[in-house]
């Protein structure tokens, strides 16, 4: 993968060549001319993080959750990995013990929120449709907009079901205490290498649909090895939301967040 860039002295080079470590990257900490051509106009130094506004709102969300004594888990996965089914099974098991609120992110429709209705949780749906096909993630302002619709003071735990996507949700802090992924064995072993940012951002990977192990050529050891390459600290839990296998362990993990 060639990664050309230009240093202050005008030299251009490519980081694709292995062993090209001789130059000093500390130089990137100073603002030089990286534009590649000279201009006659004035230059203004900015040095402002592009996610700064999101992260400030995330901090405000986090403070509000903390003040209400609520713990928050951001649940992410690809579409169809089984987040909603896992949540339904989770609500069934936590009913009467843990007061749960759900923030449900979906590009369109209330289908997922409807599936979770009647299982004892307070649900706030966020449709991310914006006229351009919909946002592919929840960001901190979207989650903030859902907070008035949840009785935070009466809840112990908020589960955020993010938009199904292995790329964008990983980039946005929404004010959660922990991130967990649902990963279905139907997705194959190599995804940690293809989506390292997502896998690195999660403390727990819930490997779902293990009831299908006898029918698929899924290489669990290979998957664990790939996960270890990008996130050696990740905890792995094997579950089947359909049969209920392993769900108690996941619920115990959630209960442990509350203490």
């Amino acid at each position, binding site marked *: *993968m060639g*990664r*050309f*860039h*230009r240093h202050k002295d005008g030299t251009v080079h490519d*980081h694709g060549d*292995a062993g090209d*470590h001789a130059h000093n*990257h500390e130089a*990137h900490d100073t*603002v030089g001319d*990286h*534009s*590649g051509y000279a*201009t*006659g*106009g*004035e*230059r*203004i*130094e*900015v*040095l*402002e*993080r*592009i*996610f*700064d*506004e*999101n992260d400030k709102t995330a901090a405000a969300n986090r403070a509000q959750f903390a003040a209400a004594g609520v713990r928050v888990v951001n649940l992410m996965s690809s579409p169809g990995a089984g987040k909603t089914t896992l949540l339904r099974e989770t609500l069934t098991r936590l009913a009467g013990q843990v007061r749960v609120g759900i923030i449900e992110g979906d590009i369109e429709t209330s289908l997922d929120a409807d599936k979770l209705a009647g299982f004892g949780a307070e649900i706030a749906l966020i449709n991310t449709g914006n006229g*351009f096909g919909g*946002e*592919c*993630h929840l*960001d901190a302002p979207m989650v903030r907009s859902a907070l008035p619709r949840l009785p935070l003071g009466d809840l112990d735990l908020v589960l955020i079901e993010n938009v199904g*996507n292995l*790329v*964008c949700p*990983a*980039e*946005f802090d929404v004010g959660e205490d922990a991130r967990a992924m649902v990963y279905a064995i139907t997705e194959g072993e190599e995804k940690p*290498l293809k989506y*390292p*940012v997502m896998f*690195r951002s999660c403390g727990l990977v819930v490997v779902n649909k293990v009831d299908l192990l006898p029918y698929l050529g899924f290489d669990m050891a290979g998957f664990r090895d790939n996960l*270890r*390459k*990008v*996130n*050696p600290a990740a905890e792995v839990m094997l579950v089947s939301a359909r049969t209920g296998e392993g769900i108690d362990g996941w619920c115990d993990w959630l209960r442990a967040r509350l203490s």
Partner: protein
Amino acid sequence: MHELSICGSIADIVTRHAAGRRVKVINVRMGQLRQVVPDTLVYCWELVSADTPLAGSRISIEAVPARIKCRTCAHVTDVGAVPVFACGACGGFDAEVVSGEEFLITSLELEENEGASA
């Protein structure tokens, strides 16, 4: 995929710093671990900036490779195109990312003869 909303954030920051002056180039520093597609960002910027005072400006991206530093032996390793966050020297996994997560606007280049209008 999320480049459109990112362009909205960029527009807010640039508008504030430009303070009414005409912007020619927006210099963005972006780490390899940021999942933003440079071409898509440039394209989305045209959409987002059209019909605004920022129309005609363009985004210039400086890519920063991902590197980790081993906490055991202090060796610095390139993460590489197929990402492996293990030390290239000792093979250890206890490492911190030292570059590749940057995502910021470093500077703006203004149109000539516009500086006095601020």
